[in-house]
């Protein structure tokens, strides 16, 4: 069998397995094991275990459960509600102020967790009912949370960027920095759209009548103190010369736990055990996909599929921007069906050499890829943020959530376009802080 036909068989087999609804991790693994046994017989069993184990036994990967833990700690405390309430007092007179509070709270929360569903859940739990109480349509309420939540993987720390960094051997610290300005830009674009939409539809409600004095506004500030403490602390550990990025995640997690437990007096066993338990579940889910994806890419490489496809694309005489458009399309489609982590571990080894050979900056590409993955988080059939919203607002039909998040998808496309025209938005900060990329 030629590399191309065995590759098609492998990918086809994977899709057939995924169609049963079985866990993505096990579908990846079974397709890989099947292909490897067909290729080389059962002796391959001698290396399967090492391949999975060594695939995730890496210090950088340890930061994933740690950043997930940070998110879990904040999400299961009242901190998300406090953050949200405070922003509301400051923003309630702006048209669509609550939508802005949502997006703003998501953006700040993103600085504390590497995971989008966590962001979505933490802010949405408070934000969605509040907005619907004040008369916002369900689609606007849920859509803005679904989209705001996606910022979790763009604004550092980000599990997606960590996985990209490991898969492509690029610097994770640098990737994080590359995400800062695009993250702020996308937040601002979301907000501009929210204000525009609210003006257009005339969302006023009683919000404007509710006036807060400056004292009332200021009094909420101490309540967001814990957040600022966590963000400042983690940044200090990250960039202050105390630890490498992978280690900073562990320190950030412990710091967050301490702040949350002390500030909100969660001194009982149950809530603390709940934080750890939920963090364990989410990180096992992510890491299992990555371990199995190691098997899958081992199979692709072993069948010489990766190399054949890469050299075929590299030899195509197309304009580099056509190439980039094709890659974006591929990422969008892949992102619709698979969670970000799975897309990256499977495609990065293939796409990375092509992209860099075509002269694109690897850090810029990481950000473009991440925004593509953000789109995937709010598109069916597999959109992790959609699942979360479905669970925290079961009364809202999925159709409304999708309809509400669609405009934000378009805003993300616009952001990708802007990044293509001005790649400096991603590359400027890391270049300033760390010198030109190698």
């Amino acid at each position: 069998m030629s590399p191309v036909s065995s590759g098609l068989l492998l990918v086809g087999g994977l899709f057939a397995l995924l169609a049963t609804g079985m866990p993505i991790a096990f579908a990846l693994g079974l397709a890989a094991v099947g292909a490897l046994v067909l290729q080389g017989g059962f002796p391959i069993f001698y290396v399967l275990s090492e391949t999975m184990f060594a695939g995730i036994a890496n210090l950088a990967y340890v930061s994933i459960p740690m950043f997930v833990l940070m998110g879990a700690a904040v999400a299961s405390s009242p901190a998300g509600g406090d953050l949200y309430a405070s922003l509301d007092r400051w923003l309630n007179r702006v048209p669509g102020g609550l939508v802005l509070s949502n997006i703003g709270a998501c953006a700040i929360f993103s600085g504390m967790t590497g995971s989008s569903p966590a962001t979505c859940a933490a802010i949405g739990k408070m934000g969605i009912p509040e907005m619907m109480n004040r008369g916002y349509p369900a689609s606007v309420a849920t859509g803005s949370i679904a989209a705001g939540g996606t910022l979790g993987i763009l604004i550092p720390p980000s599990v997606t960027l960590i996985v990209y960094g490991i898969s492509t051997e690029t610097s994770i610290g640098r990737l994080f920095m590359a995400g800062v300005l695009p993250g702020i830009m996308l937040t601002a674009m979301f907000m501009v759209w929210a204000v525009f939409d609210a003006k257009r539809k005339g969302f006023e409600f009683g919000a404007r009548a509710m006036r807060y004095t400056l004292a009332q506004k200021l009094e909420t500030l101490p309540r967001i103190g814990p957040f600022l403490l966590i963000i400042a602390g983690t940044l200090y550990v990250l960039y202050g010369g105390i630890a490498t990025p992978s280690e900073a995640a562990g320190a950030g997690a412990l710091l967050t736990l301490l702040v949350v437990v002390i500030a909100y007096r969660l001194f009982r066993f149950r809530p603390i055990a709940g934080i750890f338990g939920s963090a364990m579940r989410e990180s096992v889910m992510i890491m299992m996909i990555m371990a199995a994806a190691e098997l899958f890419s081992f199979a692709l490489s072993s069948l010489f599929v990766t190399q054949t496809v890469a050299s075929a694309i590299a030899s195509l005489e197309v304009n580099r921007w056509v190439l980039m458009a094709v890659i974006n399309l591929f990422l969008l489609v892949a992102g619709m069906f698979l969670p970000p982590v799975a897309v990256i571990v499977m495609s990065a080894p293939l796409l990375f050499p092509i992209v860099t050979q075509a002269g694109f900056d690897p850090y810029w590409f990481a950000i473009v890829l991440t925004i593509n993955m953000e789109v995937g988080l709010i598109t069916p059939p597999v959109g992790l943020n959609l699942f979360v919203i479905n669970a925290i607002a079961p009364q809202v039909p999925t159709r409304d959530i999708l309809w509400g998040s669609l405009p934000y998808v378009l805003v993300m496309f616009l952001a990708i376009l802007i990044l293509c025209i001005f790649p400096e938005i991603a590359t400027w900060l890391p270049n300033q802080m760390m010198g030109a990329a190698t």
Partner: protein
Amino acid sequence: MISAFVSAVGALSRLLAIVATLLLIAAMLVVCEMILVRYVFRAATIWQTDFVIFAATASVFLGAPYVLLKNGHVGVDVVELLLKPRPRRVLRIIGALCGLAFCAAMLAASYINFEEAWSAGWKHSSVWAPRLWIPLSALPVGFGMLCLQYVAQILVMLREPLQADPAAEHIAMAHAVAPHALEETAR
């Protein structure tokens, strides 16, 4: 008989989940200890990196059966949602059998690896040089337990009356994706 088996398997998965969670906590604490030792005391860190990596990796395989129990491994349910209850159940059973096949294959593969590491006395090549069978044992244990968990699920599916609505499905999945938010809501 079947329900005794199912609940025994569930209890074992929970037990492993506790071990996995403790390993994660240990990894977090050791990372912090490592930073402290290195930065504050400027002293040697010999065993910490190895420990953290192996603890975090082992916790993935040990926690996996519990995550399966909680329906927490994300899957693609497009096809499922298009089907009527009866074919949907058939599809699910096929999916579970495929999952079982993979876990059984990995149980065999990881047992071979573990056995070799154990009998040949393999060590990790570092100063600390921990014995490799210790972290590697997480794979056969985890995959073995995943197999049992799948068998339990299949038995339950064969027995249960037709039901399941897609919304409940999504909520189950969200519990896995971001359980922290939902626990409050559920109470």
